[in-house]
């Protein structure tokens, strides 16, 4: 079974954040915002499992797919050593994507850290009346793809944890203030769980359509091994859904944070 793609470009976006541009008609032709690819970082036994990485951008004309990841362990560290021209084994696209907005709708995305990448893809594929992006980063140096977000969104709000750029503190504060004044048709969120919890809860309370993209340690990436469990409502009870197959994008009201 062959999932080979050719690496067209690699780029360090900021400290510890890397972009790989894959050439793959298979992935580019099928991918939708919110989906991921499951890549093999080594042929050997070190970093044995594949690593799920979200898709940040797709260029259908040139059959390229950008994936962005943070170097935060054995597998992603090996991925950093891949270079232009190398072959990368990437299964996918996998998982369920976001529900795209309709033409006249107004949407907001709320992203934190590496959670911003699938949201860029979503914004670029959303052809709707108004797009607002709320992005949170640790510090000014960690801000990535600001120009790309600026081009696709009518309004861009950035917050940094240390106040070195934009709003000082968590991105949920300016988002919540905005939500008091505005009533968007759809809100999408991806990033740290505490952030998504606040966004999801606020939207559910106000009856605003909201989808969030979850993360969990995965095994197979296709729904067979059942390890990437995520707690969801099941009537008055709960059950475990699986991030790779049932998600990674879930309706906010379904999740139990």
């Amino acid at each position: 079974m062959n999932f080979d793609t050719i690496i067209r470009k690699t780029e360090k976006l900021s400290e510890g954040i890397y972009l790989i541009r894959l050439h793959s008609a298979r992935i580019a032709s099928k991918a939708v915002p919110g989906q991921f690819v499951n890549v093999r970082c080594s042929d050997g036994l070190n970093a044995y499992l594949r690593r799920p990485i979200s898709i940040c951008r797709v260029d259908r004309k040139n059959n390229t797919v950008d994936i962005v990841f943070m170097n935060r362990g054995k597998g992603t560290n090996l991925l950093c050593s891949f270079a232009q021209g190398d072959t990368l084994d990437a299964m996918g696209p996998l998982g369920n994507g976001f529900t795209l907005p309709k033409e006249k709708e107004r949407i907001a995305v709320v992203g934190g850290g590496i959670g911003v990448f699938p949201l860029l893809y979503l914004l670029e594929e959303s052809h709707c009346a108004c797009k607002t992006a709320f992005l949170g980063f640790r510090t000014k140096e960690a801000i990535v793809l600001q120009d790309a977000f600026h081009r696709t969104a009518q309004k861009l709000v950035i917050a940094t944890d240390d106040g070195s750029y934009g709003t000082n503190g968590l991105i949920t504060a300016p988002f919540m203030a905005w939500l008091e004044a505005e009533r968007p048709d759809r809100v999408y969120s991806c990033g740290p769980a505490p952030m998504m919890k606040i966004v999801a809860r606020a939207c559910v309370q106000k009856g605003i359509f909201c989808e969030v993209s979850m993360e969990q340690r995965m095994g197979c990436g296709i729904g067979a091994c059942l390890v990437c469990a995520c707690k969801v409502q099941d009537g008055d009870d709960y059950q475990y859904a699986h991030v790779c197959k049932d998600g990674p994008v879930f309706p906010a009201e379904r999740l139990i944070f």
Partner: protein
Amino acid sequence: MNLSVNFAGLKLKNPVIAASGTFGFGREFSNFFDLNRLGGISVKGLTLEPRKGNPPPRIAETPGGILNSVGLQNPGVHAFIREEIPFLRQFDLPIIVNIAGNTPEDYCAMAEILSEADIDAIELNVSCPNVKKGCLLFGSTPEGVSEITAVVRKVCKKPLIVKLTPNVTDITQTAKAAEASGADCVSLINTLLGMAIDIEKRKPILANTMGGLSGPAVKPVAVRMVYQVSKEVKIPIIGMGGISNGEDAVEFLLAGASAVMVGTAGFVNPGVWVETAEGIEAYMKKHGFGKVSELTGALQE
């Protein structure tokens, strides 16, 4: 070349079976390859009633393997019969149903129900390390294995496979107990109980603290156990533990297995089942074997 194997009342077109717990009920991997290429499937472990499973994280990566603590999340035996058998019967594929329970009564109830269902064999899971009650408790002693095997045997009208745990001092004792109590076959090994720690957080990686180790790391232990068991029992053995290719599978066959199960390697390479069967065939051609059964126990000592 003919890769078929015939043992314990099972007819497999090749000796490579998808291992329980790694393959769901086949739906997901059917998007990646033709399930008709499998020798058989052992489905995700079932219990009498649906189970939610353990909280996440349920997986930790370790050198050459993984720890899992899924905890038998499954829809229950009735939903399996209603919803999954019709799907699997679209394929020319023997269905082995892996069952687990808290009590001997649970196992018997499931064996009775499944004896009337359109399936090919029952695999008694007395070796899951990830649930609090039953299961591994029965599998850890020869007496426990005898008790469960004997009571299930009385009501089970299908070929009965007992899946053994490696978490014992001497696996030949539990294997012999299974044989003496009426098992048609033993399968081994289930996962090795293990643990991994996040030293930054000073916490276990798995929410359940401990989990079952599988993958290439366990292969030498598994081959050794198959070898030991083959010396002590006459019933056929299905070998498993860390198989990633045909060469690995041949090791198990030479050690005494009649067939193999492959699981964890499929997470990395969904082609592993087909490639393993092809690899066995290539080995047989190279070494002049006409039948897979000629490989079983053909170790030169």
